[in-house]
């Protein structure tokens, strides 16, 4: 089974880092503005669709640059003319607004692009196997996804901890009024951060679109998982989001790879149940069957036993 383990780890890393690109924006937005943006994954979907349309005319690489920018501008507009307006009515209104926005974006995508799957292809330049291990290829494009995600993580970390802008953002996270009193334009920072966060989500969509299929349900599949990551990692904690992304990516990947389930557990315990038992569905459950809902189980457990999340400092 070594090949399964190696590839499960690689797959987990690819998924985990992709999730982190979404989660990083979400968690920074949350820590600054207190908004859990339900529509974050919708911006990810918009990224994929914009990049698809651009790639039809100008090729993949133009889409890679332009689509996140467009998404970022859209995000900034949403913050400026939507969220800021709702902000005065409190957090519930904001959450409900982003919830409605997610719904609206999904419908709008179906309106403009139609409901069927889009033929969004990986660029020819990266259409070769990077390496072959135990008979399975690891495509260059997945390597490219890994590289971009790691690059984003390092870049983001550097900006936030080293640069002047990063320091202001960090200050605005914890003491917005103080920062405003120092003469910084806090609303502008908010808009900018929201724009950059959504642009990151858009970028994730651009690079994930070709491998994970571009279709109107792609935001829904990812939406709540990203939420889960941010909460498990600790609201507002970037390292926490990183840890939780990898944790969830690897957890799901290993759960699918592991050929174990309740039958094995029961055999281990020496228990046996007849096939017609009312709880038969439970006794025959496999770990891989429930892999996609493991994050939610983790979420509930974390919130019950450690409401601050893994690395969060404050409770909400």
């Amino acid at each position, binding site marked *: *089974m070594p*090949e*399964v383990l190696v*590839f*499960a780890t690689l*797959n*987990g890393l*690819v*998924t985990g880092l992709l999730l982190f690109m979404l989660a990083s924006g979400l968690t920074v937005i949350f820590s600054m503005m207190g908004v859990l943006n339900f529509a974050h994954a919708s911006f990810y979907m918009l990224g994929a669709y914009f990049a698809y349309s651009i790639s039809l005319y100008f090729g993949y690489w133009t889409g890679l640059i332009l689509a996140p920018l467009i998404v970022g501008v859209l995000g900034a507009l949403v913050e400026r003319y939507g969220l800021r307006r709702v902000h005065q009515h409190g957090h519930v209104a904001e959450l409900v607004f982003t919830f409605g926005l997610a719904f609206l974006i999904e419908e709008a995508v*179906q309106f403009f692009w*139609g*409901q*069927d*799957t*889009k*033929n*969004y*292809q990986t660029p020819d330049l990266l259409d070769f*196997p990077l390496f*072959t291990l*135990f*008979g*399975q*290829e*690891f*495509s260059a*494009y*997945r390597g490219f996804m890994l590289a971009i995600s790691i690059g984003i993580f390092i870049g983001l970390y550097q900006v936030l901890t080293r640069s002047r802008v990063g320091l202001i953002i960090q200050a605005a996270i914890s003491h917005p009024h103080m920062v405003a009193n120092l003469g910084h334009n806090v609303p502008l920072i908010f808009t900018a951060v929201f724009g950059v966060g959504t642009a990151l989500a858009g970028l994730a969509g651009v690079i994930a679109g070709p*491998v*994970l*299929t571009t*279709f*109107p*349900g*792609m935001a*829904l*599949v*990812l939406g709540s*998982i990203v939420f889960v990551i941010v909460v498990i990692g600790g609201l507002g904690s970037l390292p926490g989001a990183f840890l939780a992304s990898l944790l969830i990516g690897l957890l*799901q*990947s290993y759960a*699918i*790879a592991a*050929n174990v389930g309740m039958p094995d557990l029961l055999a281990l315990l020496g228990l046996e149940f007849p096939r017609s038992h009312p709880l038969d569905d439970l006794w025959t459950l*496999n770990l*891989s*069957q*429930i*892999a*996609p*809902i493991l994050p939610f189980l983790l979420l509930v457990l974390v919130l019950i036993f450690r409401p601050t999340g893994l690395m969060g400092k404050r409770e909400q």
Partner: protein
Amino acid sequence: MVHSFFLARACSRLLSIFLIVLASSFSIQARAQDSEPVRIGFMDPLSGPFASIGTSGLTVLQFAADYLFNSRGGILGGRMIEIVPLDNMQSPTETQIQFRRAVSEGLRIIFQGNSSAVANALNTAVTRHNRRNPGQEILQLNYSAVDPILTEENCSFWHFRFDAHAVMKLNVLTDFIAGNEDIQRMYIIGQDYSFGHVVAETSERLLREKRPDIEIVGNEFHPIGQVKDFTPYVTKIVASNADAVITGNFGADMVSLARSIIDSGLDIPIYTFYAAYDGITATLGTDGKNRIRLVHNDSANPIPTGERKQFYRDFKAAHPDRDVTQPRLAMALSMLVQAMEQTGGTDPYELALALEDMRFTTLSGEEVWMRGSDHQIFQDLHVSVQTDEGIEFDADNSGFGLLTEYKVPAAETIVENRCEMKRPQR
């Protein structure tokens, strides 16, 4: 307590507005008269995440009605066919709501195809309605839901299926697989729901009967519509050294699975049901060439008759962006019209009797038989491959389409009747 009083005023005003809206929206349809159109309901997802398949079906049915009948003077001595869309969003609850709407509008015949869960829900609702409201029966024409249960345990006098059910299709598919000596190790993967389970259990059983030497190296279920990335599953397929895959996946789950298999460099055939049209053929394109094989009923390239070719061409001229995804809709409609002409009316009970054991020749020149004892149709079944060679009629305007490699005549697809039908008395 002006407060409550104000509320009452507001309520009454609101109410009066709604009453006006309601009143203007409901008008009970008058009984159909000779010159009035024959109204037929088409219930499938027309909005929401599954809409693409429903809207393409609606387009085909509407086109077939216009092309085959309305443009040739109508049916029953000059009456036109009117297709009434009923959007159920592929949700069992919406199906119930739309069913009531259909009853309220006086529709007596409903076409429905997508999702066996919905078909089951509709079947239950129709059977119940017909039992409780004798004289106002409804007929359900199922053109696509393939769960065997609909013509076996849950079979109903009021339900007719115009598609081969899952077990019949798998019978053909496994025959085809059994003929390929290269296949020694089979991997089965599917969505964790009833159809996925039927596919898994049946293919395992049939392969064991037909080719005991084929080893089933994996039998996996994944949650439906929840998997972001299929690569972890593909890793298991690679590790199992499988040399073919069977899957019942549809929609995005199908595309993502095939994509992941292709991306991992695994060059093995994928045997499946729903991997063509609605963007899937275009998305898989070259990568799916000679790799995707699917079992289906209607003929693919080469199209056998000129009549069917003309139907395709005229459809394409009217709807350049669409394909004739389900030609059996035209067949089902033609059979229904034949039953109407035979009985000289549109009474569902009479129509059902006329449809029983009807034999009909399709546009492709194939003869089909609607078995009277369980209302299951028998027709030629095909296994086709995705390719761009020898394709006269492609899918998604991609240049790629389906080329038939294997064909089983209707007579050989007949399965045992397992239906104990309760027949209403008149």
